[in-house]
């Protein structure tokens, strides 16, 4: 038994190296002097990060991506909060079916979501711009928001709500003064995760972007130029760090939401 658990441990660490190998190349080669991404390394340099400062197309793409990520994460969080509140608080006919339907984009191949949205937009004669991407991303992010908000609402004690109503608050007041503060960390986690996912999303943006290129679509175009590779690696490094920071922040809020609810003594 102990021998097999030793092998298991060796496997686990080897597998972990496999999982990390590609991502670790990002920082290694974005600080490497050579323009060619290959070993041996030739020296330390900040030049590829510096090169990013002078790419106007990148700055436009970044601006578009920020608009898309902020708008779609807010919209998706509103939709997710509504859906999650409805399904965790009330029991009603058609609940499970409609929830499954709203969650479907989680598992549908993205190309199908992208193509079908594009078909409709073209048929309606709508010009593709930043808004078409925002709508597509909102559709994609809403299920993630529902999952996060579900765990926030599920821990909510019904008696707090009843107490507030008994004490004379109306429904709006109860929501605003009792429920909202308790699920606020969940909402912030949902916004941060949505923002991160939207910032990284490629397929939907690729189909719906029109001329308002987003960051991943810009990166996709850069892949064709071998000369720009190291700068693209540098950009990837920055994106990785930003994603990790946003994620740690959202994890912090998610835990806080749980702690906040646990701190209220449960009568049962």
């Amino acid at each position, binding site marked *: 038994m102990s021998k097999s658990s030793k092998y298991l*441990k060796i496997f686990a660490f080897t597998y972990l190296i496999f999982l990390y190998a590609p991502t670790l190349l990002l920082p290694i080669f974005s600080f490497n002097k050579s323009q060619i991404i290959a070993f041996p390394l030739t020296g330390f340099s900040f030049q590829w990060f510096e090169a990013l400062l002078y790419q106007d197309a990148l700055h436009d793409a970044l601006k578009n991506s920020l608009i898309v990520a902020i708008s779609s994460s807010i919209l998706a969080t509103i*939709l997710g909060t*509504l859906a999650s509140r409805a399904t965790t*608080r009330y029991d009603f006919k058609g609940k499970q079916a409609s929830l499954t339907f709203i969650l479907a984009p989680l*598992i549908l191949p993205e190309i*199908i979501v992208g193509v079908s949205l594009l078909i409709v937009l073209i048929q309606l004669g709508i010009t593709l711009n930043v808004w078409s991407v925002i709508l597509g991303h909102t559709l994609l992010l809403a299920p993630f928001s529902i999952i996060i908000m579900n765990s926030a609402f599920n821990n909510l004690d019904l008696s707090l709500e009843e107490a507030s109503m008994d004490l004379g608050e109306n429904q709006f007041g109860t929501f605003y003064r009792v429920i909202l503060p308790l699920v606020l960390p969940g909402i912030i986690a949902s916004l941060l995760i949505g923002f991160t996912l939207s910032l990284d999303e490629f397929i939907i943006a690729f189909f719906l972007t029109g001329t308002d290129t987003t960051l991943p679509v810009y990166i996709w175009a850069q892949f064709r130029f071998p000369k720009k590779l190291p700068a693209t690696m540098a950009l990837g490094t920055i994106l990785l760090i930003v994603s990790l920071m946003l*994620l740690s922040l959202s994890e912090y809020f998610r835990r806080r939401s749980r702690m906040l609810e646990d701190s209220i003594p449960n009568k049962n």
Partner: protein
Amino acid sequence: MKFTFNNDTKKGWRLLSIPFIFSLLLLAAPLTMMFLLSFWTQDYLTLDKTFTFKNYIEAATQPVYKLLFTRSLIISLTATFFTVLLAFPMAYFISFHGGERKALWLFLITIPFWTSYLIRMFLWKVILGYNGVLNSFLIWLEMITEPLTFLLYNANAVVLALTHGWAPFAILPIFVSLEKIDRSLLEASTDLGDSAIDQFFRIILPLSAPGVIGAALIIFIPTVGDYITPKLVGGTDGLMIANMIQVQFSKANNAPLAAALSVSSLMIVSFISIVFVLFNRKYLRRY
């Protein structure tokens, strides 16, 4: 109770209606539209709305589409198999030998996957390329003298990249199902004389089946329609159906055929998934 059933229904739907209508407009309507379009034809820019099975007949009979469908399924199924195969011992290790550090292990596993999918898949191209990281590294170590050419631009490269890219989607659900296993069952089986291997096949594997089945579906369904990976590391021998859908939609200007190919792949994927779930339903029943 204060709330009657009808009241619940009204309040529930009042909240749910907005996200529901949103999904109706942005998911159901487009999918329906795509379905309709697949029965029409397009000649350059004019759309002929006469109902016809022409696109489906073309999708079913043209060898190129048959090849792409088969290849997409084989690549996706192989990648799903290897991802789950590698993920299982990892999830098992974390669940049974993780001790106090389970959360840390799970965190460590997810970190590399917060780079965008696009960049991760591209990194495989950088690794496997002719002048890439792996070849240059092996030459530097003097293990080879000429770069290896079989690494990139084939179906194997796509399988490798997918097996890497989808790993957390297998590890996490399998871990969750392993965590749910009542540890006293294991003690009981040991007491009753089961060897470690018996125990694995008679208790751990059947009880973790829901996680394994879930993981397989979570990976299989989206990867059949993957566009990025085959385009970046597949070369011509590794292209998949999504790449053809995109070509038909844009360059070939044949949106109806693209729609028919999309609908067909959705049906094939659903069919395989349903058969897979039915085939394994005895493991899912007790949950």
